[in-house]
């Protein structure tokens, strides 16, 4: 059975009130939703609470979910995005102000092997760079590279066409590449 059909069956069961099916949906998506939220709100405790809220929202709304548009994952991440925006609204802040805080950047760096340490350092630089992208570009990067959504699904979440998503992705990757190159040049200067 294809993944899509499995998911469709799970959602169908969950819509009928099957809590175990809902549990499987939670297990399947919680990691991606948490990471998606964390990279926007910046603090693990807030990300945990928002993630819980997202799945509670899903619980409440799943009865009315229909297989239209870009499918369940897009619907779920749209809820997640709205919950994040709601979080910022309650805090009276704009999302761009606190994305990718030091709390994420200060996560432990793997330094077991020299090469891995270098990769981890690059990843930290990249995370900082993602935090500096425009909000739309950031959303596309998170939804495509983290949540593995298709262009159509990303478009559904951020209310943009597939063409616009491709363009945002292209510009975002160019910006990230330039940022990485500049950081590497700075490192070379220091050495």
């Amino acid at each position, binding site marked *: 059975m294809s993944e899509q059909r499995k998911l469709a069956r799970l959602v169908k069961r969950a819509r009928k009130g099957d809590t175990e099916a809902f549990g499987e949906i939670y297990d399947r998506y919680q990691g991606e939703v948490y990471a998606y939220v964390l990279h926007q709100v910046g603090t693990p*405790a807030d990300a945990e609470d928002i993630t819980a809220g997202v799945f509670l929202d899903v619980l409440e709304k799943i009865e009315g979910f229909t297989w239209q548009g870009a499918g369940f994952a897009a619907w779920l991440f749209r809820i997640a995005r709205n919950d994040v925006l709601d979080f910022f609204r309650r805090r009276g802040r704009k999302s761009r102000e606190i994305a990718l805080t030091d709390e994420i950047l200060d996560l432990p760096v793997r330094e077991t092997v020299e090469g891995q340490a270098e990769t981890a350092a690059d990843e930290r630089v990249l995370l900082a760079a993602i935090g500096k992208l425009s909000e739309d570009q950031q959303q596309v990067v998170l939804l495509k590279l983290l949540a593995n959504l298709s262009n159509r699904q990303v478009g559904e979440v951020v209310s943009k066409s597939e063409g616009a998503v491709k363009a945002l992705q292209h510009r975002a990757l160019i910006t990230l590449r330039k940022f990485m190159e500049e950081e590497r040049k700075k490192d070379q200067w220091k050495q």
Partner: protein
Amino acid sequence: MTGQMKNVLDECLESVLAGRDTIDSCCSRYPQMEADLRPLLDVALMSHEALKTAMPDAASAAIREKIMAGTRRETSTTRRSIWSRIFDRHIFLRPIALGTGLIFLLSAGTALAATNADPDSFLYPLEQRLEGARTALTPQKLDKAQVEIAHANERLDETERMAGADKPEYIPELLTKFDSHVDSATGLAKEAVDEGEDAIQVEQGILSARERLDKVVADLNGRIPDELRDSVREAVEESDQDIPGQETESSFGGNQGSDYAPDIPGSSNGDIETHNGDSGGSGESHDSGSGGGSSEPSHQDPPASDPPHEDPPHKEPQHQETPKQNSQNSGERENIDSHNNGLHY
């Protein structure tokens, strides 16, 4: 060129992320673009790795358990979780479950503590949403109605606690929510009866919740500051308006319509009066799944915000009293008393 580059980048990225291609194999298909394509794919894959941030196991399990517990609670017809069945079947695993549970409790985020959060707690919105989820996941109408009645009683518990904690500003909203739950329970019971089910237990639950409302409001004597009296009275009156008898063709028995009419000090005309049987119904529809909190977001619409519990409505006192006419009230009460056999649909 840029347009073509966007498409090639997108195609390669999708196939590389899906494991169908490598960066090398993709670049070999587009040698003329490799100089631009490769660094972008490199940075995309590196971002893909960098963004993977695992939720701490304890938090993940705690949130899961909380959601599952929330959906199981008060739902006799819902099947038990696979985990509880596993632990039941394998008794030797229970100490592990207990230990793990304790670790979750000690290490999880604040979501775990939301249960029983009071209205003055920042966790209250989460608590409210859990309630909504519980109701939404309860499959049978009568069970759903019982859940609503339980929530209505919880609002009264909270009202008592807020009064005891000298935080009366939360009380009007709590009483409005009480009304919303009772209204939902009444609607669900009516639907169940229309479908041929026996709703006697729900009827009794609604009646005792209303009786309890009377007592709670009476106990508020002396604890409601002047500026909140009108708000409380409005909330109670709104609740009273839901007493069936007109449009729902149902009515309550018991001691509805008795002479009991608690009042709030300063309300010389008994202005917070319960069960006055005001006609016309509430005129509001209440989402049974909302738990008095968020509204229903559609696929297109963003989920609504949590109820603004932090800023309960402070209504200015309206000293121009518009007392309910006793004659009118007594007329309504007659109507109610004439159906003294419980709910009739």
